């Protein structure tokens, strides 16, 4: 058994449960991730989030559009509004679109919380179909594998 592939599959399953709003399964699978799978999960979450943000905002988003999206997302999901600040969410989206420096001083926990909340909001904004979620996760998995191969070689 290829351990990395297993970790990747488990990570994808966690994100799929989140996006399907199956929160019990999401919490259960998330809690079961071990140290190596946690690392993979962080990478897959990052690639899925970056892919979803790129699809939503394109290459030249306006700041106003991002501010509006984040405010709407935080207002729509009240727990998100309390747990993720507007600054963190906006900076994560802008970093995903190229402004990496905005998250230089952000801690890992805040980044994970912002990515999780905004990925959920991006996918649910216009009622993304299960097929589109599958395509998003397939792309995210491919990019995560490519990223890990690059970092292993480097």
């Amino acid at each position, binding site marked *: 058994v290829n351990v990395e592939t297993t970790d990747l599959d488990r990570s994808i399953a966690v994100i799929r449960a989140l996006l399907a709003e199956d929160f019990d399964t999401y919490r259960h699978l998330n809690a079961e991730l071990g140290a190596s799978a946690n690392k993979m999960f962080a990478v897959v979450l990052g690639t899925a989030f970056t892919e979803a943000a790129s699809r939503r905002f394109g290459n030249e988003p306006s700041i106003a559009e991002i501010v509006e999206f984040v*405010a709407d997302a935080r207002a*729509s999901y*009240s727990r998100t509004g*309390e747990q993720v600040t*507007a*600054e963190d969410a906006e900076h994560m989206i802008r970093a995903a679109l190229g402004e990496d420096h905005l998250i230089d001083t952000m801690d890992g926990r805040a980044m994970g919380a912002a990515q999780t909340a905004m990925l959920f909001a991006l996918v649910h904004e216009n009622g993304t179909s299960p097929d589109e979620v599958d395509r998003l996760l397939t792309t995210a998995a491919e990019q995560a594998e490519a990223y890990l191969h690059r970092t292993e070689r480097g």
Partner: protein
Amino acid sequence: MTVTDAQVTALRAVLTGDGETFDRLGGESGQDYGEEIGILTATAFGTAARHRFPGQWSMPDLIRFVGQVRARDQGEYADINASAAEQMLRAALSDEPMRGEFDEAANAYAQAVILAELVSDLDAQQLDAFLAEARVQANRHLAAHARS
């Protein structure tokens, strides 16, 4: 200590975007506007917030409002600290202390822009009446603190 005419005029200038008057008054007084204008602004902010969000309100209401202000005019005010603005509104509406720590400049900027938005639907006469009422309340607050 009481709020002076110049301090009321200075706040009015901030709320109407009249930078020239604000700068001129600062030059005439030869000093900053003193702590009274801080009390006046805070009093005005609380009154305006309660007027904008009467009765029931929720954090999502405040989040949306701050988001709209920051996104307006192609994001001209996107650099307002959203957390400071949201917490300032929450504190004003709930009469509880502000949660979180924000630097003074971020607080002052957020307060000025949000207050300007809160009173933006008032005409000149209504704005004068609003500021006159805020002045009375600020003076009451200053008097109460002078006694204690």
